[in-house]
């Protein structure tokens, strides 16, 4: 198919290039990708990107060339890691709890435990305002919906579960950094 004729091309391109993850909740954009996955995949490959169709039914673009995750994404990742750590400490089934309900921004464990606060301070997050900013980042990338004080994770947040599952691969040869602060 001629790339020009791909349905929703302008909008799909505009969203994916911003790092947004598109799920079935995104309606026409997701359907366009789903139906024309091959053509879209070829198009983005020609532009130097890989269109990923995650098994949990969402699409995003991967750029292998990029060496560092941007600050916003790092904040999202640390936020999610803390949440996952907290849930597993409670003995809960992490995946079920992450996606089967919502979280009250004021009840999150992130600012309530010194250990979690230490992690957040490394990202210069110290208070509820910082946490709200991260919630907005999660929304911007399509990882979550935010309604008032309620945060509901969307399927793309599975990427952070994948990050945990792949930790051994990515951190295997990580040498200690003598200059780093604990």
């Amino acid at each position, binding site marked *: 198919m001629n790339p020009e004729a791909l349905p929703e091309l302008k909008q799909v391109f505009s969203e994916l290039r911003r790092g947004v993850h598109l799920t079935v909740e995104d309606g026409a954009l997701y359907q366009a990708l789903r139906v024309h996955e091959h053509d879209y995949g070829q198009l983005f490959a020609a532009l130097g*990107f890989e269109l990923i169709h995650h098994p949990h039914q969402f699409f995003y673009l991967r750029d292998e060339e990029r060496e560092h995750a941007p600050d916003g994404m790092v904040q999202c*990742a640390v936020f999610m*890691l803390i949440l996952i750590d907290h849930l*597993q400490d409670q003995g809960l089934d992490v995946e079920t709890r992450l996606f089967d309900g919502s979280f009250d921004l004021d009840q999150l464990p992130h600012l309530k435990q010194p250990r979690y606060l230490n992690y957040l301070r*490394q*990202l210069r997050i110290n208070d509820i305002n910082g946490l709200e900013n991260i919630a907005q980042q999660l929304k911007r990338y399509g990882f979550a919906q935010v309604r008032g004080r309620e945060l509901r994770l969307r399927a793309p947040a599975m990427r952070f579960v994948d990050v*945990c599952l792949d930790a051994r691969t990515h951190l295997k040869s990580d040498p200690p950094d003598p200059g780093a602060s*604990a």
Partner: protein
Amino acid sequence: MASLKSSLSFLAEHESLLLALLESPDGLTQGELAARCVSARSPDSSLTPALLQRLLDLGILEERPGESVYLELSLPVRTFLGHLLRTHELITPEAIRGYVNELDGQGRALGEAAANADAQAAVLALERMAAAIERVRSYANANHAAILERVLRAKAGADGYSVRERYLRINALWQDYLGPLRALVEPGEWAHTSFDRLAELLGRAREALITHGVVADACERVRARLLRMRTQAGACYAEAYRELLPLYERARRQNLIAEGCGRWLEHLSRHSAHRLAAALPVARVSWQGQFNDAALTARLLALARFNPIAPAPMSEAAGERPDVVSISRLRAALAQARPISDLLAWLACELPQASWAELVRAYVALSPAGTAWSEGGEPHCLARPEGKIGYRPLAIERAT
């Protein structure tokens, strides 16, 4: 000796006390036991010294070795109550292996007895075999029931364990308790092989001892026991596997998530957020340059319509060869030829077809570095089809 009826009546009268002890594998102190009985508000609530003594005399209770203040149920009563109440305890692989080894040993004894036509030795071996088979059957059933009980508790989330603890326990169930069941039923496994051997041996012993009708019948009965045990063990294994597998996989995945999460957070606490950003495999898309819609469309169309044309193949014909000069080959030739009085003239002889550009490139490459040379003399002129150039000759001396 107390009669069975009176013993069972006595046990029934003190049910709450027995249940309290059954739920406490490590035993209870007299004080704890008395408190449990009182809280149960049953008619047997008072734990008098006389009652305690009677329980000890009947062998229902025992003092914990070295700690007489603690009381525990004796093993036979614990097993009996566990059987009645279906609260099975897991049987270790070693225990099952012990009985399978016992079967192997008795099998050898039966073989010898059959070879010697020793009916009495054969009967003894058969009795021990039957007991060992029943024990294995009982253990297989107990493990099956215990596994299912724990699976149900874990599924209900009522086990109260953290993700890591739950995984370790389910993994132990999988490795330590389902494993022996598998060994009983899967061809090639140690126990399965023993049972095959035993079944064959029982058949041969029956034939050998056919003249001793009772012994031959006993062989057949033991074989029937063996068959029943294997059938039940097979069913136990299949069901326990079916129930435990999804739970095991779930717990394993949860544990991997927990472990990975811990690694990332530990990485963050040891290093900087910058290092985390470099390691995280969630880099956002980066886009160099700004595309407006028209530019994007044009680019997409250009990409879609782009049809690369392969370059013409290189010709080997004389005069059409690619104009490429090998500097390394020339350097080697120069090393052989020097001293020479005029480098450019020498190159012109070596490369008669080369263009001026290639000739000059070779001249520059060979002239100064690492080579003894001298410049001077009268101006010279070199004529080629492309034109003429004037120069002063560069002499290359013999290496010192």
